[in-house]
């Protein structure tokens, strides 16, 4: 198997190097790629969409249709992970593990009986880490991470950032909480159902704005149609359209990241997680 792999790799590598000989030099300003289509974006982005960050305006407006499908790809990945690993009807183990929160002593309680007192928290596997320092630091960290994530989503127009990056950081802030404490306590804050509905709503918001423009008589995802609704001129309508779409992407990516993490970390049983 190694020999076949080596031969294939050498052949394709040689072929690619042979083909790379004809490329324009790296970084020269008058290569065809930087002369044919992209100057239009740079020249007209501020004038047509009032968004100085050319990448955000191309992502969400000129080629917004690509990004809609790309958010659908993320949502599909979430649905596939849930579909593959999630075991919904799980039989309860006959004896349960409890751990005393303060001292860390773990006890095994037979089915049906209750733990001796309230400070015992339920755990699934004996080695779940329980570290006071990590827990408190993460509790302090989470709000600031979330504020930064909201900044990243909203300021995608003027600085690098946007829906994806902000959504992932939002999701990461909740994953940090799930890692530092355990998945069960994180699930008390965000139910699995709300998580799935959140990510479905996020992408629906994106595709719904497009469909709204369709219903108002313009082409799909043509934000000019939003001008009469938002009571702004057409250029600002495009800027606001981009913002709505970025918020939709942020919500979708956040929901999906948490969903995939909780399915992967708990192997579908939604028990203790990492």
């Amino acid at each position, binding site marked *: 198997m190694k020999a076949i792999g080596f031969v294939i790799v050498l052949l394709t590598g040689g*072929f*690619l190097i*042979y*083909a*790379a*000989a*004809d*490329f*324009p030099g790296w970084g020269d300003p008058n*290569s*065809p*790629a*930087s*002369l*044919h*289509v*992209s100057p*239009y*974006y740079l020249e007209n982005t501020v004038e047509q969409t009032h968004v100085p960050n050319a990448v955000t305006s191309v992502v969400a*407006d*000129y*080629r*917004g*249709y*690509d990004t*809609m*499908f*790309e958010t*659908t*790809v993320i*949502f*599909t*990945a979430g*649905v*596939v992970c*849930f*579909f*593959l690993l*999630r075991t*919904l*009807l799980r039989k309860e183990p006959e004896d349960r593990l409890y751990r005393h929160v303060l001292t860390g002593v773990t006890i095994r309680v037979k089915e049906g009986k209750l733990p001796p007192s309230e400070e015992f928290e339920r755990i699934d596997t004996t080695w779940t880490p329980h570290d006071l320092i990590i827990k408190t630091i993460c509790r302090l960290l989470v709000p600031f991470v979330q504020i930064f994530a909201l900044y990243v989503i909203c300021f995608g127009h003027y600085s690098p950032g946007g829906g994806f990056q902000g959504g992932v950081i939002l999701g990461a802030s909740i994953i940090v909480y799930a890692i530092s404490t355990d998945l069960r306590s994180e699930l008390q804050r965000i139910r699995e*159902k709300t998580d*799935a*509905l959140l990510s*479905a*709503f996020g*992408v*629906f918001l994106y*595709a*719904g704005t*497009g*469909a709204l423009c*369709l219903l108002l008589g*313009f*082409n*799909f*995802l*043509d*934000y*000019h149609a939003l001008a009469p609704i938002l009571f702004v001129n057409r250029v600002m309508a495009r800027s606001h359209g981009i913002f709505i779409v970025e918020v939709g992407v942020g919500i979708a990516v956040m929901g999906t990241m948490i969903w995939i993490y909780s399915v992967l970390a708990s192997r579908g049983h939604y028990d203790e997680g990492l």
Partner: protein
Amino acid sequence: MSTQYPALLVTIPLLSGFVISAAGWLNRRLCFYIAVIALAGSAFSCFGVLLQVLQEGHVTYHLGGWDPPWGIEYYVDYLNGLVLVVVSTVALVNLIATKRSVEEEFQEKIGPFYTLYAFMVTGLLGIVVTGDAFNLYVLLEITALSGYGLLGMGKNDRATLSTLNYLYMGTIGACFYLLGIGYLYIVTGSLNMRDIAQILPSLYGSKAVLAAFIICLVGVWAKMAFFPFHGWLPNAYTHASSAASSLIAPLVTKVMIYVMIRLMLTIFTPAFTFSVAQLSKPVVWLAVAAIVMGGIFALAQRDLKKMLTYIIVAEVGYMVGGAWLGNRAGMTGAILHILNDALMTLCVFLVAGNIVYKVKGCAFDDLKGLMRKMPFTMGAFVVGALSIIGVPPTCGFFSKWYLISGAIQAGQYAFVVALLFSSLVNVVLFFRVIEIGYYEPAGSHHGHEHHPEPMDEAPLTMLVPLFIVAAGLILVGLYTGDIVNRIIELAIPNGIV
């Protein structure tokens, strides 16, 4: 509203995917009905687009209101108008036919299943209708991911490993296609298919364009399981659940062949494909190898579904070989075979689905005495078998006829021999199955031989769509004449003699 058809046919299944996913959490019974309404709506708009194309020649649609090279553009001509109709009708018929088996296999996960079903149809329709090369890659990924999900949840546990191998090969294929588009972008600077086609003629000499063509082809071949890259298909489709395999088997490989033909005819115009790039001969030899290998491996199988998957690999060889013959008859045969093969594969896989639903297995020894137990299903199986073999009233004969006449014109006699050899192998394969179904008595281990088995047929909701498809095979066969003259003749540019 009618000018919005190209956008509607993709966005209706997409929006329905999200609604179904929400319905999966709130009220599970709604999922199937939302899916049926959505697919019916998108099939209706597909027919609408085809009618518009028949009147005006081609339909363009600017997404987001931007002009083509800057924004994304939908470009529907005769070729993808026809494939759009095929994809949407096959998906709709399969959705209705497999309702019962889906409810039986995925009791509590029906929501995710229909969500992935809707996204798979969105991806396929989007690939066929788009006029932008990078948009095609993103939709390729949606189709691939929902395909992994649908195939991964197979009945037995071997589905997981075979789908993981499909994932590796599918990712390599998609990345090679992306790389090919990158090579095109670096020398032309544009991503719109028709815009690239206008810039390319001055660049035909450069090595990068030839490399882009070969890399794109390798990527698309890996996705359609053409001969050297076919290792993943038999296992992935066999171990999948019957509903998933009867959706994916007829559609994904045919849409990838459409992408290859789109690459050959629209982006790299026929002038480049058949004269500058001297690829015709080696590719037809690969197609011959695919057909022969598919036939031989199919003979060695003891399981109905696995045998059918090897026949798919051989059919892919038909279409690729036909497209690469370089003459009008061969290309007509290839495009017609996309339509015919989708219907034939759907008919035969629905039969396998019915058998698995009733008999819980489709190995050859499970099929004993099925002619008496399930006469209607096996009747449709006979029609499907005749069509795959290529018997005149059914549509399989006509596309094979065009392929053979194209091969003779092009002087590729090895391809003619391969086609005839494959027809004979198909005869052996299908009549062996029919014989097991007919003559061998229902397994003697039942003990009570005196009164024959009661006829327990698949439920009506699974039989009626099967009959529609079987009737469709014969109807398409009869109407081949004007399908070819009014649609396929105009789909092939006059660059091919």
